[in-house]
């Protein structure tokens, strides 16, 4: 059965999109067939991280949500563009980066229903193991649509005061939308802190499973974010944490 995981964060800049891409990389390396859906309509970023030129793209998630095409028309197989060869596959359903289009895209009930249908319309023909749905940070139309339509929600936060309160709201919202599984990922932990301790204390705060603690590393910026990090840097310590998160997040 295809596992559908939505990626959330209360605040922006927590690393949500990079992490979604990294996890897709880990899974593709294990031979899995993964699809990323960029549901961050206001500020899509997955196509940039995958080095795709949007001028060549004809059909975006926005078009599918507004019933102008099938979701399968909007899928791009990015596997052959990746830096490394992988036994699995990474597909992307991109969002239109044009600000005027993004502003016009409405998240009404129909759009949310189409999103939910879209998962299944992709899962079978592409024979997918996992779908990651990247959302727009905050309590937004995108995040609510995703929480309402996926089984598993991964919430990413940084150990920063501005994140804590809002993340609690997001956790409550996820629970009130009857999400089956909730997983928390802590990103950008400062080197002075013990990951184990941070994990325990945050687990206690949100009463949710912490599936990984990623230490702050300048390498993600310095080495460049083109393509899934684990594929470019298989021996980097961060890659080991991404692998661990994938193990804990993916049940199948």
């Amino acid at each position, binding site marked *: 059965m295809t596992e559908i995981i939505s990626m959330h964060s*209360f*605040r*922006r*800049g*927590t690393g949500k999109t990079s992490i979604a891409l990294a996890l897709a990389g880990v899974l593709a390396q294990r031979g899995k067939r993964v699809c990323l859906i960029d549901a961050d309509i*206001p*500020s899509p*970023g997955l196509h*940039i*991280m995958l080095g795709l030129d949007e001028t060549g793209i004809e059909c975006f998630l926005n078009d599918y949500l507004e019933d102008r095409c099938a979701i399968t028309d909007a899928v791009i197989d990015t596997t052959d563009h990746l830096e490394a060869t992988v036994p699995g596959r990474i597909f992307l359903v991109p969002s239109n*980066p044009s*600000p005027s289009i993004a*502003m016009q895209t409405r998240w009404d009930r129909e759009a949310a229903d189409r999103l939910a249908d879209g998962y299944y319309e992709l899962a079978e023909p592409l024979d997918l193991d996992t779908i990651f749905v990247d959302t727009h*940070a*905050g*309590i*937004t*139309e995108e995040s609510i649509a995703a929480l309402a339509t996926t089984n598993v929600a991964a919430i990413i936060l940084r*150990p*920063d*005061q*501005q994140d804590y*309160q*809002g993340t609690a*709201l997001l956790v*409550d*919202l996820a629970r009130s939308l009857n999400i089956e599984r909730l997983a928390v990922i802590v990103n*950008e932990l*400062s*080197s*002075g802190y013990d990951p184990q301790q941070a994990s325990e204390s945050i687990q206690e705060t949100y009463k949710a499973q912490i599936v990984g603690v990623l230490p*702050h590393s*300048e390498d993600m*910026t*310095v080495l*460049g*974010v*083109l393509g899934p990090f684990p594929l470019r840097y298989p021996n980097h310590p961060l890659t080991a944490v991404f692998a661990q998160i994938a193990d804990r997040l993916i049940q199948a």
Partner: protein
Amino acid sequence: MSKIISVHSFRGGTGKSNTTANISAILAAKGLRVGVIDTDIQSPGIHVLFGLDEETMHHSLNDYLWGKCEIQDCAHEITENLGHPIGGKLFLIPSSIKPGEIARVLREGYDVGMLNDGLHDLLEALELDILMIDTHPGLNEETLLSIATSDALAILMRPDQQDYQGTSVTVEVARKLGVPRMVLVVNKTPQVFDREEIRKKVETTYNCPVAAVIPHSEEMMTLASSGIFTLEYPDHEVSKLYHQVADILIS
């Protein structure tokens, strides 16, 4: 004086709230009357830096936008909260952190024109020298209006691929809106990067002055938005750069 300064970024997570909070503290320390307004209604955060929470927040910007009060009623004088003696005054107009109220704004939207009028009312009612706007990231109706109203605009970005692309759109738009003074601030720069090189690259790419290239700082991360960095670490390199940006914005 009476200036409106917007702090903006294309994407989030660039450090806008921390930058706004620090610059406002620096300006207040120079003896100015400074107001800070959090217009990031969907994801309010700057109040955290000033030690305000649900209990201490008597009114929020949301109350004004829903016609419940005058905008100056939403101002919280936070000069004392800084915990350091300063010559001027600092006021914060926060956005609501009650989930029901955030949800309501998402559902109903708000009158952007009313927000704009409110900015000018604030300048007058509180006799402000400076009003700093902590904006919502990205380009939308609200941010466009804030930018159009501003006397000075600081656009924050991180030196990464996504920010480079989005910032170029923002700079273009700001230019068309005729902001009198616009500067870029490159933030969270990895320590291994050559900052002078980054400055040159950004200045030529956008044809816009770079007020500062601020390095990533472990101390800032550790402070984790629990306070104002320039007050805690006044001699730190990052604090000096904040001073530099503040001076450029008001000159």
